[in-house]
């Protein structure tokens, strides 16, 4: 980072890679246009016009929101669209609008001032609540308020967005992301947010490159300035030199060419040259992602995040609602299998009855919360069990840190099975149950845990976070989140060996499983399954099909001998370049 070097104009900002792709173009600085509201007097004879102005603005706002809603439903599914439905309801709140109109008439003040004042009251009340959910609602209310005000002032938000641009903003709301994607947006760069932020999720599903967590992008970039964003590496370059642009274009080309080489690979198995087959499956959160995983050539679902359903709606779905989703997933994935991870809420994931914790990542989350909420957990397990009649459903517990929790969770499964028996419902009595290894203590106890379950799956994101004591969403320490840290490698090896000793298969469902630099190492360490984000699946399969298990083992052994993450990374880079020469590694 040449932040202090005034000679070189090109400046590199490091952020978090949120959505893959490369984009080069002029920046468009999107300051959340909080419209300025001034209090103005309205002459009595202009009153009627003022009220009309308000009504027109409301009608236009509703039209805009309806468009966004339809668009969101098409592109993102009806669940994600719900945010916008609530906003439309507020627009149509007769009590609110009557009050506003009456105040305009009695106080003879301008419409935007009264709207801001009146809606602001509700917003403040929501922000005063200790409930995280209410704060989210306050944002919705604020969005609606700004939309009405903007329309009253007859501003056009995107009038200045001409041609193709890269949107630079502090943060992006879901509505911003959706509406921007209809314009000519090349990419997003934001100051705030992590890989799991709204903007990141949406840009991935809209296939627009994005880098988030840049901290100072809005302060340093100006509208019209050239900027290059690298959504693979999480890097934004301001005023890139010709050379940089060439290099990035080359990278983009390499990725495209590599992708073309992957055509036709979907129907082939993930098998090494010397016939070691790896179960290569997908991590997903919503059932509408299944067609994509199939197209990518996925063998089943290695991680289905069940909490997606409740995070989308902000409340716990009923047993029937859960069952419907799980059953659809199990049926559409058949004859492959799906591993449902039980609700993993807490930590960074909002929960409806969110409680405030000093240190949520070390707090009440994952299996800990479920074991304390027997009714919710049983309901969840009943829904999962009922979906298992085709015998292709597996259950996995997150955040296990002791054997005691494994036993308690299994006891819940047994109880849920008994309840279903009493109800006369069908389920797979021999359903396979596994544990996600993501807490260092569970890794150390992997052998004992493996003795009591059917499989282990290494969740690298949390495992690395807990092992290295680094929050990767905290941009100040994110560079310390090293998946190739020798300590991480040793722990992974330990877990694999422990599982195999007890004759259970061991998989990996963390992000590391989808890193092309890690594939050879992981195959060599003996993993039986890799579950990855579907977008990188063909690439990983290609690597597996290009290598030999024999070589991979040697690579793993050598990788384990290095003392630092940099050494490991350097070694793996050279090995992968040699063995899989046409792969565009995510290194600049």
């Amino acid at each position, binding site marked *: 980072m040449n932040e202090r070097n005034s000679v070189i104009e090109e400046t590199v900002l490091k952020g978090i890679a949120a959505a893959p792709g490369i984009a080069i173009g002029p920046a468009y600085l999107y300051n959340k246009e909080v419209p300025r509201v001034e209090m103005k007097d309205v002459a009595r004879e202009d009153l009627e016009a003022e009220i009309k102005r308000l009504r027109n603005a409301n009608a236009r706002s509703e039209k805009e929101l309806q468009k966004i809603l339809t668009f969101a439903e098409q592109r993102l599914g009806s669940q994600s669209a719900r945010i916008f439905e*609530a906003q439309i309801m507020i627009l149509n*709140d*007769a009590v*609110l609008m009557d009050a506003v109109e009456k105040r305009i008439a009695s106080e003879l003040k301008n419409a935007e001032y009264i709207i801001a004042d009146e809606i602001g009251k*509700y917003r403040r*009340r*929501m922000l005063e609540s200790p409930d995280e959910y209410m704060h989210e609602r306050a944002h919705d209310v604020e969005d609606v308020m700004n939309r009405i005000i903007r329309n009253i002032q007859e501003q056009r938000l995107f009038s200045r967005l001409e041609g193709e641009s890269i949107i630079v903003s502090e943060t992006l709301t879901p509505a911003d992301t959706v509406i921007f994607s209809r314009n000519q947006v090349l990419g997003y760069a934001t100051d705030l947010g992590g890989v799991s932020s709204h903007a990141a999720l949406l840009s991935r599903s809209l296939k627009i490159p994005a880098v988030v967590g840049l901290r100072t992008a809005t302060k340093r970039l100006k509208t019209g300035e050239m900027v290059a964003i690298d959504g693979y590496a999480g890097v934004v370059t301001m005023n890139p030199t010709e050379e940089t642009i060439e290099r990035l274009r080359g990278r983009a080309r390499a990725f495209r060419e590599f992708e073309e080489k992957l055509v036709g690979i979907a129907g082939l198995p993930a098998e090494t040259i010397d016939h070691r087959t790896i179960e290569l499956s997908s991590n997903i959160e919503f059932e509408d992602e299944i067609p994509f995983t199939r197209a990518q050539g996925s063998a089943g679902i290695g991680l289905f995040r069940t909490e997606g359903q409740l995070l989308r709606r*902000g409340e716990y779905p009923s047993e029937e609602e859960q069952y419907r989703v799980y059953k659809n997933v199990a049926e559409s994935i058949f004859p492959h299998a799906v591993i449902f991870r039980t609700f993993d809420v807490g930590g960074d994931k909002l929960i409806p*009855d969110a409680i405030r914790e000093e240190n949520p990542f070390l707090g009440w989350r994952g299996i800990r919360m479920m074991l304390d909420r027997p009714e919710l957990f049983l309901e969840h397990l009943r829904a999962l069990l009922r979906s298992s009649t085709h015998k292709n459903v597996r259950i996995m517990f997150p955040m296990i840190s002791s054997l005691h929790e494994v036993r308690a969770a299994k006891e819940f499964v047994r109880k849920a099975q008994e309840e279903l028996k009493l109800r006369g419902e069908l389920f797979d009595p021999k359903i396979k149950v596994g544990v996600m290894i993501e807490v260092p203590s569970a890794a150390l106890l992997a052998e004992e845990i493996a003795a009591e379950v059917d499989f282990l799956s290494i969740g690298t994101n949390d495992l690395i976070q807990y092992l290295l004591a680094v929050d990767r969403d905290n941009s100040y320490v994110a560079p310390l989140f090293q998946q190739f840290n020798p300590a991480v490698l040793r722990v992974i090896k330990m877990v694999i060996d422990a599982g195999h000793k007890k004759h259970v298969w061991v998989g990996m469902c963390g992000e590391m499983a989808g890193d092309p630099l890690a594939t050879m190492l992981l195959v060599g360490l003996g993993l039986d399954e890799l579950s990855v984000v579907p977008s990188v699946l063909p690439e990983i399969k290609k690597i597996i099909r290009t290598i030999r298990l024999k070589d991979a083992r040697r690579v793993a052994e050598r990788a384990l001998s290095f003392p630092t993450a940099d050494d490991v990374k350097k070694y793996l880079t050279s090995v992968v370049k040699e063995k899989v020469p046409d792969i565009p590694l995510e290194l600049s």
Partner: protein
Amino acid sequence: MIERQVTIRNRSGLHTRPAATLVKAAARFQSEFTIIKDAMEINGKSIIGVMTLAAEQGSELRLRFEGPDEEQAAAAIVDLFERGFDE
């Protein structure tokens, strides 16, 4: 004027969806409908108002109905709370 005491039964409390159901039900009656929680009084026919209530499962609310069809309104709304908004 009629007043009724209710307890929120549905698990997620008066979140957006139940709030919408409540407001829509109240709109069918002429009577004024006020919800009182602690020191807060809000118009039960206003979605934005109901959204600010932050009424979780187990919280107690006072409902006030005033108007020509207050009996019917009270019966219908109280029933809605008792059924936990059919969640």
